[in-house]
């Protein structure tokens, strides 16, 4: 059921995922640690908004488990958070993709905030939470990255490209 364009994107989407994972574990100086954008959910959102069939739920789950292994969190935390956020994205992708600049930016911000909320919820549940305000910074910095990526989404989404 995959269209020809999606087949052509296979290398690109998996390498973009790998790149996002590498960026997630790249060591940063201490002051910047909290500002790291949520690269992996950002990548998923980026692809799913225009091509909701790009990644299956199982792939998303597996990437979440991979993230848990790399980041040392309990297995399943990032998997479930990614699943929920990507599922919502798939359901509302058409609305979000056709939104104007600010609305889209805010929607993405909200989705990533939800992602962080879920992670935070797990942390609180296992009594490991860190109640600092800068825990939520990644959602903000991700929005900044998104505003740079938005141009390409517009380009991919226009009907004359034959995507939708």
């Amino acid at each position, binding site marked *: *059921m*995959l269209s020809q364009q999606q087949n052509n994107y296979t290398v690109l989407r998996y390498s973009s995922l*790998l790149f996002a*994972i*590498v960026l*997630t*574990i*790249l*060591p*940063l100086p201490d002051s910047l*640690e*909290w500002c*790291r954008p949520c690269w992996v959910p950002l990548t998923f959102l980026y692809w799913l908004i225009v091509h*909701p*069939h790009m990644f*299956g*739920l*199982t*792939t998303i*789950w*597996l990437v*979440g*488990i*991979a993230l848990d*292994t*790399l*980041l*040392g*969190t*309990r*297995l*399943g*935390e990032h*998997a*479930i958070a990614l*699943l*929920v956020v990507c*599922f919502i994205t*798939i359901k509302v992708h058409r609305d979000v993709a056709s939104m104007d600049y600010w609305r889209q930016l805010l929607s993405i911000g909200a989705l990533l905030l939800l992602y962080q909320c879920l992670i935070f919820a*797990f*942390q609180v549940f296992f*009594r*490991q*939470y*860190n109640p*600092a305000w800068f*825990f939520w910074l990644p959602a903000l910095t991700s929005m900044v990255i998104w505003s740079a990526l938005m141009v390409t989404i517009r380009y991919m989404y226009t009907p004359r490209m034959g995507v939708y």
Partner: protein
Amino acid sequence: MELFKRGPATGTRLMVLVVLGLLLMAIDRHEQHAKFIHKALSVMMSPIQYAVDAPFRWSRSFSQRVSSQQHLLSENTEFRRQLLLLQGQNQQLATLTKENQQLHALFKSKAKLSDDVVAARLLSVATTPYMQQFTLAKGEHDKVFVGQVVLDANGVIGQVTRVGLNTSQVLLATDSRSAIPVESLRNGLRGVLIGRGSNTSLRLLYVPKSAEISVGDEFITSGLGQRFPRGYPVGVVSNVSDRPSEHFKTIDIKPHGKFLQNNLVLLVVPKAHKKMSKHAKPTTK
């Protein structure tokens, strides 16, 4: 690789995968069941970790190679001096150990066997900023086990929580999940040391109000619970406060270890390891 056939993402699939995730989370708590999963996952993930670490390692060795000869010579002299001092101190150690064993024999109690230490390199990969952990470049291949104590030159810095084939995760003592049983060097007062996040002092729990403790008291690992070997320096008391509303005293301990500043750490290999519980779990809350 998909569990489900091609088709739209439905709520059912979501539910199945979420439940699977929760199941994994529940299994993750019990190290003996999760060991295989952790190993399998680490085998797949360690190439990425080593790949991310590689450029940093190369830049470090490169900067070492282009150090001026002057710098290397002075470093060399300093190392020789430190080595001589340590060897001198070590000469006394043999005598003291022997005397210790003889005293224990007098009281008919079993003397503690001394432990070996093994050096391990840190991988330059980041984990989440709200948890204090790091990754070692050693794993099951090098006989690293869960619960193993990790030291740096100054004292205890943490314990191993997850072991893969050639990587392992270390939980630092400053992480909020870490709990180390300690005792005071001065009067044997016992308590549990928990972490409160990076750059803050550790907190000693369960110290009764009547206990005699003062600023400057040294604390070492107490070995209670058979998970952490006894006798390793952890930190020194920096603050004692006695609030009437609390049941216990509030005690802050400044750790000796300089967390995350070095690239090499030491792993303790107890000589009595074979006798230790096979189902070692890290000491956590």
